């Protein structure tokens, strides 16, 4: 059975071009770039190229920093805890503002800081499923707020947040702004000049790069202590031997992601819409979030009477990999905050399924998925009591 991968918001296939570009750095040019000898120095031109690609991919200026990290979780921890050390522990400011729908690496870092006495505001999303600048305005204060951390696009719904307005509002008030752009790179244009962020984080494996490598953009002039102390790598801002193959792979993955933005916006969107339309004709399904407000690859759908985990179980048995939008597989069954804020029927709270495409998804796969999806829903509804009412 050929399997169909529609969980690209969780991770993506490494582009074969990226894999090839990484290959020489395992057995040929394996030197430590901080060594003085030729094994070390011969890697430098490739690293320089990788950084060029990361800078131009995000429109960073040469005087800004893009620090290599191990993943977005590391980058986000570095920002949230670093701002705590820099501004809150020193008594300059007191509060952090984030959202209820951030990734756990931001939320749990904030919860940790709360345990140290920091005040954190977790903003709700509005009826459209996003946090807008008007909501934010009520929670920030120029003298109190140290950091605002709001994602560029949401992993579950794909909804794109108005980061340009938010960044502008933060700048007007002299507040540092961080955005987790993990779900944005390769899906929408990410330009740190157009959107004046202070910190931006991303992870290579979400855009067809390798796992275990990510990036943290820090605008020139913004002070942030290192999270990893040690050697002089990354200008002393992130110690630890450089993951050369990962960095070089991430550089190419970034370039390809930006080159393919047009394809993503047109072709991936077309396939996503095709899948969405195919699913939406099934009775009592509910697509979450306005289509044009979402990243072009994501669908979050509720199917009345069909519990989420049961549906992904059935899809998986038929070769389609998707994930639950509800928390059923975890220990906590608290309703999804996005669902609650968007006034989605309580009965649908346990029925969310996320399907996320990539530029490697094909039309044939999409058509097969529509068939499989319909059959699975039909089977599970025959077991469920909802359909009998």
């Amino acid at each position, binding site marked *: 059975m050929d399997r169909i991968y529609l969980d690209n918001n969780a991770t993506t296939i490494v582009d074969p071009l990226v894999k090839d570009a990484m290959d020489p750095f395992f057995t040929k040019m394996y030197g430590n770039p901080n060594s003085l000898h030729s094994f070390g120095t011969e890697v430098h031109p490739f690293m320089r190229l990788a950084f060029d690609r990361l800078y131009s991919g995000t429109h960073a200026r040469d005087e800004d920093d893009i620090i290599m990290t191990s993943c977005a979780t590391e980058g986000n921890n570095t920002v949230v805890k670093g701002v705590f050390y820099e501004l809150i522990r020193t008594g300059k400011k007191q509060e952090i503002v984030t959202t209820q729908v951030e990734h756990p690496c931001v939320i749990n870092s904030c919860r940790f800081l709360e345990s140290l006495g920091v005040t954190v505001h977790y903003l709700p999303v509005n009826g459209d499923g996003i946090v807008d600048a008007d909501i934010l305005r009520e929670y920030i204060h120029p003298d109190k707020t140290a950091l605002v951390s709001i994602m560029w696009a949401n992993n579950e719904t794909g909804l794109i947040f108005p980061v340009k307005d938010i960044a502008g509002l933060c700048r007007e008030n002299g507040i540092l702004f961080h955005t987790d752009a993990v779900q944005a790179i390769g899906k929408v244009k990410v330009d740190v000049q157009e959107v004046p962020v202070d910190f931006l984080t991303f992870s290579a494996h979400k855009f067809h790069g390798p796992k275990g490598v990510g990036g943290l953009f820090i605008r020139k002039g913004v002070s942030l202590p290192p999270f990893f102390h040690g050697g002089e790598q990354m200008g002393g801002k992130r110690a630890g031997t450089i993951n050369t193959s990962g960095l070089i792979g991430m550089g190419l993955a970034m370039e390809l992601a930006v080159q393919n933005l047009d394809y993503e916006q047109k072709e991936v969107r077309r396939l996503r819409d095709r899948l969405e339309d195919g699913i939406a004709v099934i009775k009592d399904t509910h697509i979450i979030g306005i289509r044009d407000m979402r990243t072009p690859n994501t669908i979050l759908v509720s199917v009345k*009477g*069909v*519990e*989420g*985990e*049961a549906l992904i*179980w059935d899809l998986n*048995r038929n070769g389609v990999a998707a994930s639950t939008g*509800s928390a*059923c*597989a*975890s*220990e*906590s*069954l*608290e309703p999804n905050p996005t669902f609650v804020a968007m006034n989605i029927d*309580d*009965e649908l*709270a*346990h029925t969310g399924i996320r399907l996320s495409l990539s530029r490697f998804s094909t039309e044939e796969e999409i058509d097969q998925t529509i068939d499989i999806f319909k059959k699975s829903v039909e089977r599970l509804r*025959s*077991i*469920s*009591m*909802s359909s*009998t009412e």
Partner: protein
Amino acid sequence: MAKTDLIGGSLWEQYSQKVNDRMTNPRHMGEITHEEAQKMGARLIVADYGAEVCGDAIRLYWAVDEKNEKILSAKYKTFGCGTAIASSDVMAEMCIGKTVDEALKITNLDVEMALRDDKDTEAIPPQKMHCSVMAYDVIKKAASIFKNVDMTVLEDEEIVCECARVSLRTIKDVIRINDLKTVEEITQYTKAGAFCKSCIRPGGHEKRRHYLVDILKEARAEMENEKKTMFMETRDFKSSNLIQKHKLVEEMLNDRVRSNLLVEGGNLEVVDMKESGDITEVYVHYLGSCQGCPSSLTGTQKYIEDTLRQELDESIAVVVV
């Protein structure tokens, strides 16, 4: 945390083959109509339990022979995850052929046991145990409809942890008997709270009537009160034996004396106690800055002796060694 916990996301790998089979090919899924029940000469019982809002809901159908109260046929419809479907399926199967009273004895633990591939390996991971509870509850509902009584009549004890079926009485007893101080210890002793964790504290999987944190707090408070009362009762210094006297002296030193010595960097220990006639001699040895302090043999000694005499008994004499 250990080596086996380092790779996450293995939820489905923890389902038994039987859970897999029942989820993929449920055997008793469906409905029983009035006509079908009539044909069997049976009474149709339809019981609903749970709600889609909560993530789990089930409707159980029984065809019951009214003469001998035997369940001739059982079917169900369910909204829930794979383990909920598998649990419902096995539960329905277990009902068939039993009397209503026999069926009432089926618990979620029996359902889970029936889903095991081998008797020593759990059929489902702990956080999914919760899904089998619904199967138990709906039997009670069906039986209450059959007997035309309120469901609570069939509850013989207050259950705190539904997954492991641990009662309020058991938890209170185990805290008391084993002097338990943490929720983790309660879980170790009773398995309460080991599964879906809802009963540990508010804010979990689902709302509960009782939480382990509160039960523990109340039980500990009760135990402390009892201890205090006991202490008050045995407070009569003179009639106590030497061991009890030593305890009373130590408690008094802790409560009233040591903190004052510690301020100055000093301390003391009781090295011996002797009863000679009506006098109880308390032998103390100074520690820290009390050693060699000029007043330790005069003022400090008198202070300790006065305190013990006032608070405990006039017969006490303090001897510094």
